[in-house]
């Protein structure tokens, strides 16, 4: 047997190390399925000590290692690199502490996001970052990607809720950064680790902030003749000083897909777009805010604005939004979910440009997005078996990103760079801008053994940066 596998099994046991073809096949990609690479082995540690031992085995063997949560990431951040050991953290899924008085929780990285909110709900608290995949994605994965979600608009992304982390560094040492107090002395190393896509170490424990469940919630559904009108309404709300918890837009193509699916929410199929606006806070604050949302929507052409009468109706409104990606399966066998951000005020013109790009390439492009953040998700439904279609999808995707960057935006708002957008980084940053990112990476992992080939594109510094130069074979780097 492979000596490396033997050593890994000595750490995690037979059942904790997957090495057969069939077992490894499951892990050859994450939520970005356009390309796949089978790892040399998959290990399932149950403790920080085991992660540390695995990292040390990998280092001694000169093998790169890649951390993975639930594999729901959409940018290939957890995609294996050739010859790597994939460290799957799903068995480290415990809530270690809930401190209700101080509103914090300490969790392991494999805990599923939604389970944390579920666990603390009896205490009147919740964990705010709520990615669309929150029923499956893990806190560790959220930390790696700095995940957001529909309620980012008011509550911020993962980085605003992580107070401290324990991580196994790429040299096998264990370090703790940050403080449960939220005010740690020294450089903000937690801020650097969150969103680093598993390239600075393997997070093994996370201390998070919990927030109180708001006293009141008001959810509105507004029906618009087109996406551009809905975007204008969002601009009016934000520009007018409203800070809703969420402002989400779903376009017509998505509405129809949803209404044809098991997620059907009774939306009018001829609606050009719907806007879901959610407000929360003290009960006495909500009625005037509801009125402002209604007024802005009607001024911008909404034909109907409905306030959810109860929790059942509220969930019904959200069904259309949350079921959108599932419903896309009706349109085509493959789905490419894009992610870009533009200044909010430019949403109307960018949406028009994005749709025009989709039309020009003859693609089924639909939009479901976090309008309040200017965070677009153009979704392209396609069939990779059709000759040339994947190439058109990728070309259209690049044009969409270029359009967003020209408008002052960026290439990803919540999915991360991973491998998907690594080579698009230069649309936003030049070599000088990338230099401190390389410094940061190398201050943690000078050998680039931890999740190599992600985030940072090939640069003039690539001789040092390229893990191939350090003996890792065939790692795709630019």
């Amino acid at each position, binding site marked *: 047997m492979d000596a490396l596998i033997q050593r890994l099994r000595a750490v995690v046991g037979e059942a904790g190390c997957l090495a057969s073809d069939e077992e490894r096949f499951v892990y050859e990609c994450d939520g970005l399925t356009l390309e796949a690479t089978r790892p040399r082995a998959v290990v399932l540690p149950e403790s920080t000590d085991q992660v540390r031992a695995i990292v040390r085995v990998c280092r001694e063997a000169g093998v790169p290692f890649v951390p993975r949560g639930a594999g729901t990431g959409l940018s290939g951040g957890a995609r294996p690199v050739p010859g790597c050991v994939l460290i799957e953290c799903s068995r480290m899924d415990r809530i270690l502490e809930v401190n209700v008085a101080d509103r914090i929780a300490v969790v392991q990285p494999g805990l599923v996001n939604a389970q944390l909110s579920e666990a603390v709900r009896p205490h009147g608290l919740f964990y705010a970052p709520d990615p669309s995949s929150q029923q499956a994605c893990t806190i560790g994965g959220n930390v790696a990607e700095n995940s957001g979600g529909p309620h980012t608009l008011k509550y911020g992304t993962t980085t605003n809720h992580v107070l401290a982390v324990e991580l196994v560094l790429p040299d096998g040492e264990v370090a703790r950064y940050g403080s449960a107090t939220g*005010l740690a002395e020294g450089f903000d190393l937690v801020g650097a680790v969150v969103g680093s896509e598993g390239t600075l170490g393997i997070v093994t424990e996370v201390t998070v902030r919990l927030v109180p469940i708001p006293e009141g919630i008001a959810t509105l559904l507004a029906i618009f003749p087109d996406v551009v009108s809905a975007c204008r309404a969002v601009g009016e709300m*934000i520009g007018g000083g409203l800070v809703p918890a969420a402002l989400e837009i779903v376009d017509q193509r998505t509405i129809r897909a949803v209404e044809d699916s098991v997620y059907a929410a009774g939306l009018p199929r001829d609606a050009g777009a719907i806007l879901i606006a959610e407000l929360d806070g003290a009960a006495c604050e909500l009625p005037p805010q509801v009125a402002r949302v209604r007024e802005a929507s009607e001024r911008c052409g909404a034909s109907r604005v409905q306030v959810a009468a109860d929790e059942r109706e509220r969930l019904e409104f959200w069904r259309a939004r949350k079921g959108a990606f599932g419903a896309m399966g009706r349109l085509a066998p493959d789905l490419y979910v894009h992610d870009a951000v533009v200044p909010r005020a430019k949403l109307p013109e960018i949406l028009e440009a994005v749709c025009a790009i989709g039309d020009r390439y003859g693609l089924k492009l639909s939009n479901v997005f976090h309008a309040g953040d200017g965070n677009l998700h153009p979704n392209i439904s396609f069939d990779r078996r059709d000759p040339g279609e994947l190439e058109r999808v990728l070309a259209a995707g690049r044009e969409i990103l270029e359009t967003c960057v020209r408008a002052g935006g960026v290439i990803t708002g*919540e999915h991360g760079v991973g491998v998907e957008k690594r080579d698009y980084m230069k649309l936003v*940053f030049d070599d000088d801008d990338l230099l401190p990112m390389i410094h940061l990476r190398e201050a943690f992992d000078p050998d680039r053994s931890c999740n190599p080939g992600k985030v940072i594109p090939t640069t003039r510094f690539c001789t040092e940066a390229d893990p191939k130069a350090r003996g890792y074979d065939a790692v795709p780097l630019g």
Partner: protein
Amino acid sequence: MSVSGAGSTLRSVLERELGTGALAGGEAGPIEIEPAEPDALAAALRVMGEAGGRARVRGRGTWDGLGNLAPDVDVVLSTRGLYGVTELDTQDGVALVRAGTTLDDLVRTVAPHGWEVPLGAPPEGSVGGALAVAAIGPRRLGQGPPRDCVLGLEVALATGERTRCGGRVVKNVTGFDLAKLYTGSFGCLGVIESAWLRLRPRPESVAGCVAPLRGGADDLALAIEAARRPTARCAALVDPERARAIGLETESAVLLVELAGSGPGVQGDLAWLSSRASASTVDPEAIDALGRSLVEPPPPGGARARLAMLPSSCVRAVRALRESGARLVVHAGLGIVHADWDAAAEAVDAAARIAIAVGAEARFEHLPDEHKRGRDVFGVGADRRAVVARMRALKRRFDPAGVLNPGRFLGHV
């Protein structure tokens, strides 16, 4: 090249690069440079790196007293000349601000458009300085930490490259989050030229109120409850001496609260406070005065420490701090305590002992130089070896020649 004896060489190189008129001082102390453009700032850094010069980076001097005793520097590099609000998007509520701009000017620029700046630094201080030290003020409860309002930064590296990170949009994971790393790094990794800041809508209603306290553990419980009201953006327990110093007439400690939000929300929380304590309204200017008083140095010979702990530890910490003779401002909802002692010798012992006992992160915000000697003012109490090790690794890569603010931050980085 050593610092002493290198002055004239460094000066001539800097003059050649920047022009004779760009330099001041230098005869008895460090050379002073105040670039008006970022290119000149970057050029100065590059020259210093090549010539072995060391620089202290300075905004408007607000935080001069903060930090460890550091080696003498060749150059004081001021960002005062980088001034102005370069861009203001009134619809999105974001602004690009040059580092030397005063907070007051920024606030005055954005306020007419319905926005405010969630930074807790003194109005006369620079935005760059506030970000470099991650300044927090009395409204941190409502404003959040400074890192939360930084969307992107333009930074001159110690090696002279001008770089950007983040961006102008409110949600962004394009590459590593360097803006978080730079914010609060004391200018050790680079010099902030400009910042994209996320503004906040000005609240519809703001109210200040003050309630006398009885003195006991219930005071802190009340302060925590007040801090958790939806519209609370400041809820500070203030000892009587400081309360009087900021213009409040009281014989006892007080709970000083500021509420901000919608009209009904503020009124609701005011009613709650009135029912729980004998609260009376006060001009919110009292909150500004509290903030100023926490930046001004204590009387000569005195010291001030900041301890950050879990709110549930505040009772124990406050009792111990008072027993040590400290006067306190306690943001109980945040677990932040500012403690002033008349005698620094008492402070250095008490702060470390109490920080360890309650698991607090602690620093000295003001400490006489003779007490700073041989001490790390950011390393009070807890063991920070893992953090310092990584800070040093970062410093070596970002600033290999050790140009920027040598020795001043945690671990004498």
